């Protein structure tokens, strides 16, 4: 996408008939979208910033009252909030890390030429296409103590002593870990497809020079593939962090404990206790964090498109 040059802006403002007609048309075409987004996206986001400075309790019917930064200071003093932050950070780092690792090697496999490649490329889309809630349900079933597939398989492989029958989802650490595995299963294909697209844009003769030099598999990956693929890798990581940080839906299948993620805690404050002011403050913490990532991402995109 070309940057509108200074001359472009000036000429379309200066009233040359074609430019003026185009401008009018652009405004008309954009109007419905802009109106909807202003009404149901931008206005709510500003509204939630305003409410984050108010005491706004929907349940007890008390008046809306300006409290300044109190919602924020209370939130930062809240033990629950820090636990939810820690859990979200764990979930994000753990899932994105493994998705990157598994997705990278899957993409390498699927980028080679072999018989039936399309079949293998197609099946990896199945986990990604499944409903998030069903994914949670399925893994919950796999983790069931006694008769769940995980316990059965571990017993058959003798990795678990015959008499032992652990309850996998008993502690909140366990829940975070096993919910992360469910997410890794579902979202690795997404990472794979992003990285595969990156690999396909690299030249086919990539490794030929290295073969002459006699480089091995790991050397080739480290010195050729990874540096060449870096832009795609960073874009994929940022997109996945944006996705993982907002985690809410899959956790509700595993636990009723709202401290497992910031979104969960925010949701609970909003729709269980109806403390809308405090929930807005919490939502804005997520918003700010994600806005920072978005700025980084857009910078990356701009840099990538300049390189091309």
């Amino acid at each position, binding site marked *: 996408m070309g940057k509108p040059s200074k001359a472009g802006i000036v000429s379309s403002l200066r009233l040359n008939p074609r430019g003026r007609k185009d401008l009018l048309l652009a405004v008309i075409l954009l109007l419905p979208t802009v109106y909807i987004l202003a009404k149901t996206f931008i206005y709510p986001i500003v509204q939630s910033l305003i409410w984050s400075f108010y005491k706004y309790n929907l349940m007890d019917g008390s008046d809306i009252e300006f409290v300044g930064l109190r919602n924020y200071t209370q939130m930062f003093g809240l033990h629950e909030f820090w636990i939810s932050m820690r859990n979200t950070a764990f979930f994000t780092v753990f899932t994105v890390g493994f998705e990157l690792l598994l997705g990278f090697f899957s993409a390498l496999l699927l980028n080679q030429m072999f018989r039936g490649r399309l079949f293998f490329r197609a099946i990896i889309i199945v986990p990604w296409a499944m409903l998030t809630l069903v994914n949670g349900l399925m893994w919950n*079933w796999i983790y069931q103590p006694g008769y769940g597939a995980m316990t059965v398989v571990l017993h058959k492989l003798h990795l678990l002593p015959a008499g032992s029958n652990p309850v996998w989802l008993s502690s909140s650490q366990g829940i975070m870990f096993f919910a992360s595995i469910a997410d890794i299963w579902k979202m690795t294909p997404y990472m794979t497809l992003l990285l595969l697209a990156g690999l396909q844009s690299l030249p086919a003769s990539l490794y030929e020079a290295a073969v002459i030099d006699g480089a091995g598999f790991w050397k080739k990956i480290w010195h050729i593939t990874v540096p060449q693929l870096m832009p795609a890798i960073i874009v994929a990581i940022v997109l996945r962090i944006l996705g993982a940080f907002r985690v809410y839906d899959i956790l509700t299948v595993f636990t009723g404990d709202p401290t497992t993620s910031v979104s969960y805690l925010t949701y609970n404050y909003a729709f269980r206790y109806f403390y809308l002011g405090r929930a807005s403050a919490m939502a804005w913490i997520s918003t700010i964090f994600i806005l920072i990532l978005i700025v980084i991402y857009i910078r990356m995109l701009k840099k990538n498109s300049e390189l091309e």
Partner: protein
Amino acid sequence: MANLLQTNAPASSAGRKARMTSKWFKAASHELIPPFYLWLGLILLTLFTLAPVTYLLLSSLSPASELLSGRLIPATLTLMNYVRLFQGPSGAEYVHALRNSVAVSVWTTVFTIGIGIFAAYALAKIKFPLRTTSLFAILAMQLLPSISIIVPMYIMMREGISISIPFTGIVLYQSPPLLDTIAGLVVAYTTFSLPFAVWLMAGYFQTISRELEEAAYVDGCGRIGTMFRIIIPLSLPGIAATAIFTLLSAWDEFIFASAFTQTFAAKTLPVAIREFIGRHSIDWGLMNAGGFVASLPPVILSLLLYRYIVGGLSAGGVKE
């Protein structure tokens, strides 16, 4: 090299073996992974991908007595769980949720594409001030989480949405409260799908060459004519990809659906699945059947339209 080995008869067996091993463990010059490891990796990948889904399907086909015995592959298969899924009052609720999901996803897709396509055309093909800035603003909106706007949106749904002319106080239309309605969910999902639909379609429109447009102008088409006769037909794959992503994300959405719906009037499948877990606590056969049915449409759709989905993903910026 091959000729040499063939003529050398006594060494041929050992030679073939060595050749076989080297063939399996050495990568071709332009490839990275030797065939042996390639296929090992592919087997692991297939196992990792398909084993959980297969297990889900098998358990949904398994009689209740076998489910809790810890057999991975049931000895007898039955469709009983699927019959029960659609039977009785809870079956009626499931069917209702299924119907709601279809309605919400289809309407969201229709509105998103119908409205977004014009904005995408303007952003891709018309030069006007602040165009790049608007594109990036749209990208940023696409990446924000629903939790950022869910609270004010809830209040908006509770009070109904009014369509008014800004700064005049003239109200053209005031809707009834939208909590617990399909319309409410369609509004929320359209809001959330519009930015990424516009971003994605604008990207596709930009790939269509200027010469084609110029040719249409010469033939006497106006801007709008060019859009409908040239740009849209040529970007149909891109529009299809956008529509699929909108459909899939509406089908999968949970956070708005659980906040804005309380009764079965507007509950969608994800909410119904979430409630399974409380209601049928250990009836895993029934739950797995329900989960399998709910996942079938998006999985089949993605496999059929695989090409468009991959194209859309690599066009970049699709959140999940």
